[in-house]
Each structure stands twice: as C-alpha cells, then as structure tokens.
C-alpha cells in the first residue's frame, strides 16, 4: 500500500474518508480542475485546518465533501461518511445530511442571514424541518443555542432582525444555526475573514469551545496560517487543487517540509520583526487550473526546483512521523535544498533566518 494510505490508516475509524476526490467545473474556456485528487480523513472531535491561497481549491474542497456544488460541477472519487458513499448522491438524498450530519459556516455573515426573517425564526427553522420540533420547543432550543454561542441578551435577540446585529454577533447566530441540529461535522469556510481582528479571536475560541463540548469534528478552511496555528489539531496545505503537505499542527510548524509551505510562512509579516524587514515574496502566480503544468505544480515558482520537479509530479510521502506527509522531491532539509539555499543566500536573493 502507498505511504499516503498508510498515513491515513492509523487511529480510530475516521468520520469522513475522502479518496481520490476530483471536482471539475465546465466553463466556456474549458474544464477547470479545481480539486484534483485529494485524500483526507476527518476524525470525530478533532479539528482539521485546510490552508491555501485564493484559487487553491480549499473552498471547493470543503463544498465537495459536503456536496454543496453548483450544477456545472462534477465530482469523481469517493467521500464516505459513516459507511455512506456521498459522491453520486442526488441533492434530494443529500438533504438529510445537510444540517443534521454536516453543517457549514460561511465567510460573510452579512449575506448568510435572511434579512427579512427574525433571528429566532431562522434558528428555529432547521429544528422544525429536520427534527420536527414544535414551535415552542424550537423557540426554547433557539434560546439555548443563543446562550451557547454567548450572545448577550439572547431573549431580546430572538425577535431582532439581522441588520440590528453587529458582524461578530451575526456570525455567532450563523454558528448557532449551523449547530442547531447537532451535526457531527462543522465546516467553517473563512469564518472570520470578514470580521475585525478583536472579534476574530472570540469567534475562533467559540468554535473551539463548541467543538469540545459537542465532540464535533471541525474543518477550518482559511488562508490565514495564524488562524490555523492556534485552533487546529491537523493542517492540510493545498496548492493548485492538490494537498501538498499534511501534518499535525505542531509538527507542521516545527518541521515544515514543502518549500511552498515554508515560503508561505516566511512571507507573513510578524509582529516581532523589526519595521522595514524585507518580506519573503513568492514570485509569479498560481497556475491555470484548466491546463496545469506537468510535474510539480509549484515548480514554476519554486526557488528550489530542479529539472525533475518540472517533469514528474512528486507523490505524497511521509517523514519519520507517519502522520506528516508532503509532496516534494527536494524537501526542506534535504541535501539539494540546503545546497540551493546557500546559493540563494550568497547571491542575496534570500535572507538568512526567519522561519
């Protein structure tokens, strides 16, 4: 069996097991390979971060697992949830999973809530539809949910409309709705990007708290490495539709292997840097997903790439730690990498230090 499969084996049975997932979009310019062969496990009660820049396919991936895709999309591969194969199911049969087994929190709380329905009604809706609760039971549960997400004056909020709440509070309401039917998995797609930084940490802490209380799996999709550093057990880094590195959080930051991940970390300005520190910038742009380059997709932008990288795509292989996999021929720390790094520092292209 491959090393990827070996690394995906260990531990208790995963809640969701994704194998060879591909999501393709038909557009006028051709077939966009937004997700191009992803293997993942999501475990009960654990938090997985999916990190990448815009266009890497992370949002499409989370929606592909849930099955929330437009009609122009086509999925291949397998997504198994508690023994059910989700790829190939119709929208009608997926409905019983949505809300009850899997839920999603989206990026912009301003548009996630219905502006003409009261908050209480919106929270009660899934309770009444999925769980068949009576009006008064749903209302009581809605109140409990608002308390659970720590909204001050919950009774008053039930009767308010979305525009009367601040961004942070709206996002809490969205989370309450997502949690209402007790899903086993919560997908959070850039849940804090549209919010102020002081509110951001509150929301992330809230999600972490709810995860522990409910023993729920959380999939946190974001471009912000700072967000995943503090709030995930495991991180998968995506680039051009593929996962290029996956590891437990501490391990990833301590022992990064993929030059892309390393570059990403180095391009973030840090608070403890001096002013006017030159940032490490990755040149170029992400590749066209209609016609991706052969070989490693990051090779055209990689300062450490060699001939093999442009020709042959590296498979996911693991380090000494079987839970840490990466896809690179000359990873960080390898002889070729060190040699190239010396050259780059000597010519002044790279600055030593910073990782």
């Amino acid at each position, binding site marked *: 069996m491959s090393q990827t499969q070996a690394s995906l084996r260990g531990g208790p049975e995963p809640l969701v097991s994704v194998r060879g997932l591909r999501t393709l979009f*038909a*557009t006028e*310019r051709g077939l966009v390979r937004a997700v191009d062969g992803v293997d993942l496990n999501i475990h009960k009660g654990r938090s997985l971060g999916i990190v990448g820049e815009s266009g890497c396919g992370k949002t499409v991936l989370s929606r592909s697992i849930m099955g929330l895709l437009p009609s*122009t*999309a*086509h999925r291949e591969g397998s997504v198994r949830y508690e023994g059910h194969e989700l790829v190939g199911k119709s929208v009608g049969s997926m409905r019983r999973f949505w809300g009850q087994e899997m839920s999603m929190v989206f990026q912009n709380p301003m548009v996630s809530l219905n502006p003409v329905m009261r908050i209480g009604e919106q929270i009660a809706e899934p309770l009444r539809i999925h769980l068949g609760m009576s009006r008064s039971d749903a209302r009581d549960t809605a109140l409990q949910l608002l308390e659970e997400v720590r909204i001050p004056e919950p009774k008053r909020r039930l009767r308010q409309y979305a525009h009367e709440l601040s961004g942070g509070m709206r996002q809490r309401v969205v989370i309450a709705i997502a949690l209402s039917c007790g899903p086993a998995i919560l997908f959070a797609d850039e849940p804090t990007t549209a919010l102020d930084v002081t509110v951001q940490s509150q929301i992330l802490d809230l999600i972490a708290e709810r995860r522990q209380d409910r023993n729920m799996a959380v999939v946190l999709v974001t471009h912000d490495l700072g967000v995943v550093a503090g709030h995930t057990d495991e991180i998968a880094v995506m680039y051009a539709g593929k996962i290029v590195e996956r590891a437990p959080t501490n391990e990833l930051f301590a022992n990064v292997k993929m030059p892309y991940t390393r570059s990403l970390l180095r391009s973030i300005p840090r608070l403890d840097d001096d002013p006017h520190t030159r940032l490490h910038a990755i040149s170029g742009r992400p590749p066209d997903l209609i016609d991706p380059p052969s070989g490693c997709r990051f090779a055209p932008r990689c300062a450490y790439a060699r001939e093999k990288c442009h020709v042959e795509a590296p498979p996911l292989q693991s380090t000494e730690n079987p839970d840490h996999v990466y896809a690179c021929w000359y990873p960080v720390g390898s002889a070729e990498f060190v040699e190239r790094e010396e050259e780059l520092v000597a010519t002044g292209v790279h600055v030593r230090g910073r990782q």
Partner: protein
Amino acid sequence: MTAARRGLGFGFWLSISWLIVISLAAIFAPWLPLKDPGENYIVAGARPPYGPSSTHWLGTDQDARDVFARTIFGARTSLVIGFGAISFGIILGGTLGVLSGYFRGWTDRIASIVMLILLSFPGLILAILITALLDRGLATIAITLGILGVAPVGRLARASTLVFAERDFVTAARAIGSSNRRIIVRELLPNVVIPMAALSLLGMAIAIVAEGGLAFLGLSVDEGVTWGKLILLGAGTRDLERAPWISFGPISMLFLTVLALNYAGDRLRDYFDVKDITL
C-alpha cells in the same frame, strides 16, 4: 454538466444580419426591382385583392397594390420612427440620467421629478394629445414615442452611473486631476453605454410596435406607409378571412424585426453582464 456560452452566439449574429438586411432594403427600396407601391396593378376581369403569385410575391391588397413592395417601403418609415424615437430617448434620457447620477443633489432631484412625471403619464393619452394638437408628421410621431422612452432610459442610465461612479477608479480619476467633464466622458460613459446599447435595441422594438398601435387608432403618420397602417388595411374581418395575405407581409416583417431586436438586445445585455461579474 452545463457549460455557459461565452460568445454572443449564432442567434445574435443571425438577428443582426436580419436587421442589416431589412435596413439596407429599406434604404435602397426606390432602387430595388420592386413593383411600384402606389400603382394599381389591376388585371382585367379579376377583382382585387389578388392572391400571392409569381408576379406579386405576397399578393396585392384591395386596390391591387403590391403587398411586398409596400411592405418594404413601409419598413422605411417604421424603422425611421423606431430609430428616431430611441435616439431621442437615449440622447435626452441618457443625458438626464448620467448627469443626475453623477452630480446627485439638486440635479438629481429635479431630474427624478421630471422622469416621474413622464412615467406617470399614460403613453397613449400623451400620443393622442400631441397628435391632436400638432400635426401627424414623421418627426412628430417619432419624437412623441421618444418622449415616452426618456424616463426608462433615464432611470437605467442613472442607476448605471450610480454604480460606476462609486467605484474606486472614478475616485482615482478625480485624484489625478480629471475634471468632471473628463470623468463623465472618459470614465463613465464607456461603461454606461453598454447596458444602454442593450436597452436601445429593445426600445427600438417597442417603438415600432407602438407605431403599430397608433396606426390602429388612426393616429399614425399622415404621409406614407408604415407597417402599422399596412396591417390595419388588411385587418377588416372580411378581408382577413378571404385575403389574409394583405396583412401577412407586414405582420411577419414586424414580427421578425421585433424578434431580432429583442433577441440581440437580450444577448448583448447578458454578454456584458457576465463580463462585469467576473470582474
């Protein structure tokens, strides 16, 4: 899987081709090998209207005038009315809309009141009033219909201007020292013109059909033939039963032209909508 069609499409170009053909036919009508539209081609021994034949492709009307020729000549007037009306509407309405959308304040308030009044006025009554008070010349009819187009075009132009005037590139233009005139002409108009072009094709269709309506009320132009007047001529019940071809020519011309205008207008709007969204 469904794929979105990017290009304007075969249908669009087909519509445009039809419009070009009919416009050219209208312009060059006097020089085309058509029968004389005013002459009575009476055949001894048979009472008009004559059915379609090899001499008269669409037959003749009750006065033995060739339907096909009259339809082509009718295009001249109908298309001029349509074009004239929408041009008036765009120039006046567009100007009003862009200025009020850009300058806001009192300009906007006054322009909005004007447009509100124009919108509230029942079009037909206005047409009757004007034609009763003035003459029923080509220009008058065209301008009357044009006045009715000022408000819808104006509102679209205003809304479009509002959207684009908010964008940062307009602020940037001001920041580099563009005068208001320059901003309106070089930054806003190229963007606003697109939805207006789509609307203008639709507006032309409406104006042509409206002329048909006026003809049925006996309010169309005094001089010359239009499609509306031609249809009217063939629309008496006995004539319609026994000689449907009298109306058939102008009806089908009207239908195809309006269809082409509507379709092309829709495609144009969709095409540029899509591009804007991907922005």
